[in-house]
């Protein structure tokens, strides 16, 4: 027997971006046959070449590392770094595109608390259901049922349907089941980010007990560096789908917190374009909520019907908005912009309605309805701090936009 619990070998995961098909079978067939017969696809969006950029992306690229038996490994990285993808692969929810993952021991994955709870069933029935979904046998659950109920602290309500539970009780029950799973490897994703502070403390304590005393392997992903630090002894840092560091947890956190290592570039210089137009430089100058964006580009083929757009993506790669600055300028300015030679434009963008988080900008410079010219190469990053939600800033809302509210509390 070796002392490796999980060996990850050259694992890559590719996702398709955008539309997988036209959504209906009939139109897919139509497109398929049209392509076969060499005719234009009747369902292509107008000026389809416009969208001919890369339609796949690698959420993980050639990641290899070992997790030793009994290690508590914290996987750190920014949003979209591939942490969740990695967990999904290890917990068998999704299959790797390349490479392989070897596992020694039974895996219990906890990507969510209370997975499979049915709200009509009682707490007790849900313990059995949830436990079985997570891989326990009925007999095993019988044995530890009392312990689970005791840990959850909701003895009185255990025979009440969970739809009458408060969200706190729901989470406590879910975590109680998970904490008592009898597996050699436990995978946990942000589960500690739920519940009140007291419960979180209890949960971290339990996780510590699980791994330290029972010698189980724990793989833990969280944005909460504090929690990672108190729970884990080793770490792995992922960035843009690649493993950039794998070391003991202190070294990893120090590395991660150092902006020199993990900084996202605010500036880009290079050459992105074709014979019509080339972008040479993009740079962001953030001043609180206002950011200035400098773009330098060269028009080689003048007077085409250019559309010059700026695309904002959030850190999950989701498009937040596209704005064309070539459409807001006056006719004279537009004529000047598309004349041959070097141009430099400074845009001022008010990001105050963006939700807190990291964003990046890509350019969508195109000839209208003919082709897209720029690629994802010329990408710059910025961060929105947005302190308006100062009380529970890290709650799990998946906003990309947060309108500015005026409020008045009436007596």
């Amino acid at each position, binding site marked *: 027997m070796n002392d490796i619990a999980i060996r990850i*070998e050259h694992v890559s995961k590719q996702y398709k971006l955008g539309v997988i098909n036209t959504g209906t079978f009939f139109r897919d067939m139509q497109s398929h046959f049209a392509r076969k017969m060499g005719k234009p696809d009747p369902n292509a969006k107008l000026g389809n070449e416009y969208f001919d950029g890369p339609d796949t992306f690698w959420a993980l690229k050639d990641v290899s590392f070992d997790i030793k038996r009994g290690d508590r490994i914290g996987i750190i990285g920014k949003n979209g770094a591939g942490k969740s993808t990695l967990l999904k692969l290890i*917990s068998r929810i999704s299959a790797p595109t390349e490479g392989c993952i070897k596992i020694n021991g*039974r895996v219990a994955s906890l990507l*969510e608390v209370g997975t499979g709870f049915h709200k009509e069933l009682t707490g007790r*029935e849900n313990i059995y259901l949830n436990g079985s979904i997570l891989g326990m046998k009925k007999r095993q659950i019988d044995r530890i049922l009392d312990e689970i109920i005791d840990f959850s602290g909701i003895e009185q309500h255990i025979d009440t349907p969970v739809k009458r539970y408060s969200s706190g009780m729901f989470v406590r029950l879910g975590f109680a089941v998970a904490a008592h799973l009898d597996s050699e490897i436990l995978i946990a994703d942000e589960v500690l980010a739920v519940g009140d502070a007291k419960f979180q403390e209890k949960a971290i304590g339990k996780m510590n007990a699980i791994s330290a005393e029972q010698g189980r392997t724990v793989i833990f992903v969280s944005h909460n560096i504090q929690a990672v630090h108190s729970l884990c002894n080793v770490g792995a840092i992922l960035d843009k789908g690649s493993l950039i560091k794998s070391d003991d947890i202190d070294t990893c956190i120090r590395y991660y917190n150092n902006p020199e290592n993990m900084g996202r570039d605010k500036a880009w210089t290079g050459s992105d374009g074709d014979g019509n137009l080339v972008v040479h430089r993009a740079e962001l100058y953030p001043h609180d909520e206002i950011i200035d964006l400098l773009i330098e580009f060269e028009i080689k083929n003048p007077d085409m019907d250019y559309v010059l757009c700026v695309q904002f993506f959030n850190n999950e790669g989701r498009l937040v908005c596209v704005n064309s600055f070539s459409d807001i300028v006056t006719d004279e300015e537009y004529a000047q912009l598309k004349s041959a030679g070097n141009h430099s434009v400074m845009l001022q963008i008010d990001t105050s309605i963006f939700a807190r988080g990291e964003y990046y900008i890509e350019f969508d410079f195109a000839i209208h309805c003919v082709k897209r010219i720029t690629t994802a190469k010329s990408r710059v990053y910025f961060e929105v701090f947005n302190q308006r939600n100062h009380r529970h800033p890290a709650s799990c809302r998946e906003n990309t936009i947060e309108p500015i509210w005026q409020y008045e509390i009436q007596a």
Partner: protein
Amino acid sequence: MKEARTVPEACNKNETWTTILRPEHKLLDLKLREVIKYRDLIGLFVKRDFITQYKQTILGPLWYVIQPLISTIMFAFVFGNLANISTDGVPYILFYYGGTMLWTYFEKCFRDSSDTFTTNADLFSKVYFPRLTVPISKVFINMLGLAIQFGLLIIFYAYYLLTKSPVHPTWYALLFPLIILWIAALGTGMGLIITSITTKYRDLKQLIAFGINLWMYATPIVYPLSQIPQKYSWVFYVNPVSAPIELFRVWFYGAGYVPPYMIVSSLIMSAFFLFLGLVSFSNGERTFVDVA
């Protein structure tokens, strides 16, 4: 498209690992051993569905018999009394109720398994367990409903036997469970094919909801096979559900006739659909999380 890439050598070495996850997989990878390991889960799914289906209802599991009973009365009135379609001498209630009961079972197995991926998307994207446990549990929960309905059939049956109505049970009736397995395999197999496709094409659901009603009328439920003109008999060779339902009547009521070729072709089709369903399901379960 996968780019050609040399598989790292270590991937091929025979070391002692409990599980190895890799991109490629066998065409038919049912992981039956795992399914058996999770048999408690199948039981709990059945229990969950049974409890929650009729929670906060007045009549509870009685609904299992109310639905086919009302259909039976409707059919007896419309097709028996008004249209005067022969039932091969079998009393109306027995004739229509038996057919409806089996059709309901087929339809439920088909529909439930064809919804596997769409209704469990949340669960499937959070935790791994053998996905096949879900459609299998549906086979059982529907069997439970069928058992209740069958109980009522027995009551009717006893009544007609006592009143000396023209029903002639054969010993083959004891082979009833085989018919149920046959129908379950057919319905589930077809459903599994559909569920792998509906993850990509949602509109297939509309077609099924509509098509299944038409399909029922192309199956000998409200009429016996003997009433079908020769030139349409191909429909029942093509429709694999006809044979088990008509066979049920032959065995239970001693009425009607199923050509042996029809039985053979239905059995072959059932096996084929089940196989195809399992293949597409095991393919679908690996990729569906990335598509849905």
